[in-house]
């Protein structure tokens, strides 16, 4: 669905690439998370993929449409939730939705809600019922809570049934409960519509649900794969063991061909499936056994930490 080949962007008057030769593919219907610290190039990538910024090198396409040569076709099939709210606060919720619908050519222009086609009014009422804002539909946007505004943006962005929905840090600035309900809502929508979701975030727990995670830093891909693969590839699982007789333990670990390091306690590199067998094989009385199973957050910090060192 999304194909990137050596995508590069260098902003004017800068001496390093904000996006530096990135290549990957996102399958249709996939939930793809682009993860990285601030300034890693996430928003730049979204801007390029949604055609508001030209790349300086490489190519990219969405559903077979080149993002440079067929920008208009691309815009038609993508939806985007921006990092900063894209609602006009002086307009009502309905006006915000109506203007979007007309810009995407879904309905002809009409100056008032009442003059819009019946199909539009039905669709809007349906959306309002879904969000539980039927009564507030004609009220100015500024009377809505932050979480509700975000939901309305998502509903609006799905009106033209995009094949790919880009979400640029959609939960930034929301409190924890709003973040959670928004996330549940998005999961439901994704399941029902089958839309490919391309998410950028620096909240790890949001990325942990993704089918594929791509971690970028300073414009480069530093890790790519399923959340499990990223965990297992990048942060080693190990068991920390120690004994009073460290010499004997060291010899025994070597004899058992268990890879280890440290002068005591020893880090024994076994994955969780083989921990039990490894411990059973050790005869030396142990004074310490501690398993280390990294969370994705550990993996992320490790990766980003490594890159910036």
């Amino acid at each position, binding site marked *: 669905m999304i194909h990137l080949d050596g995508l590069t962007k260098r902003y004017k008057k800068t001496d390093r690439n904000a996006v530096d030769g990135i290549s990957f593919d996102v399958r249709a219907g996939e939930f793809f998370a682009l993860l990285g610290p601030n300034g890693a190039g996430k928003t730049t990538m979204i801007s390029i993929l949604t055609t*508001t910024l030209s790349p300086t090198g490489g190519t990219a396409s969405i559903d077979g449409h080149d993002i440079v040569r067929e920008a208009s076709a691309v*815009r038609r099939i993508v939806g985007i939730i921006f990092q900063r709210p894209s*609602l006009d606060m002086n307009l009502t919720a309905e006006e915000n939705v109506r203007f979007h619908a*007309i*810009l995407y*050519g879904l309905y002809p222009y009409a100056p008032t809600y009442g003059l819009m086609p019946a199909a539009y009014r039905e669709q809007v009422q349906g959306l309002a019922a879904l969000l539980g804002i039927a009564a507030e539909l004609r009220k100015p946007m500024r009377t809505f809570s932050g979480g509700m505004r975000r939901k309305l943006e998502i509903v609006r962005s799905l009106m033209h049934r995009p094949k790919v929905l880009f979400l640029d840090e959609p939960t930034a600035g929301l409190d924890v409960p709003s973040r959670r309900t928004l996330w549940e809502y998005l999961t439901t929508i994704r399941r029902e519509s089958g839309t490919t979701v391309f998410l950028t975030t620096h909240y790890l727990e949001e990325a942990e649900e993704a089918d594929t995670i791509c971690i970028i830093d300073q414009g480069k891909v530093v890790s790519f794969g399923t959340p499990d693969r990223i965990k297992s590839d990048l942060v080693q699982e190990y068991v920390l063991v120690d004994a009073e007789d460290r010499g004997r333990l060291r010899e025994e670990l070597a004899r058992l061909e268990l890879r280890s390091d440290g002068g005591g306690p020893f880090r024994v590199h076994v994955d969780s499936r083989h921990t039990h067998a490894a411990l059973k094989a050790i005869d030396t009385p142990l004074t310490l056994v501690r398993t280390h199973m990294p969370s994705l957050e550990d993996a992320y910090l490790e990766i980003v930490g490594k890159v910036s060192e």
Partner: protein
Amino acid sequence: MSEVAAVLTLAHRDLIKLLRDRARIVSDFAFPLIFIGILGTSLQSGFGSSTGINLLHFVFTGVLAQTIWQSTALGVISLLMDREQDFSQEIFVSPISRYSIIFGKILGESLVAFPQFIAILAFGIILGVPFTLEKIVALIPAALIIAVYGGAFGVLVLSRLENQRQANQIFPFVMLPQFFLAGIFNPIQNLPWFLDILSKIAPMRYAVDLMRDVYYAGGPSVPIFDLPTNLAIIGVEFLVFIVVGTAGFVRAERNR
């Protein structure tokens, strides 16, 4: 068809935003009223008899043109400033043509300038600026031409700017000198040659002169150029501004 709908939608949004923003309405109306009420009236009472023309009427026609022209010009330039805010972000990623964005914005800002035109006109009548009904009717198309012309100038400036900081920096150099070069408050018939050249370059001058052509029609010879000359100059500049400005804007927009 959907492009026309998009243009109308963008214009509609601008108008609604103005009507619901009380602080902006107050500030949009306050300045012209201060210029005309204080500057025009005091100039007339101080120097009016020595110049042979009524300076209140002179300032009134100048400010009327300047307000409309500047309102649309700045409105269009604001496209640059709010590209990363509110609904404007949606506009840039929507499948409509970039030309529709420009035309929608010019149309919208012209609609926004229109209530200001009415308010200034009403204020002029209160201050005793003489009007006939025919004159008021004739001023309406003049105001529309000036609004659209200001919008085109806005597009040209917009295409040369990269961000809001730049816009703020160049604003005093682009707008303020034109106040004097265009002869809003001061006659510009007898300028030194270098100011005369600058004055002839200043686009606002032709907007002001066009307004005076219409207002003073059949009266004192206050305008510098006649109506057809001003219309011809405005027409040519409008086309150049729109074509060069839009092309530059579309290119600059994506090649940041």
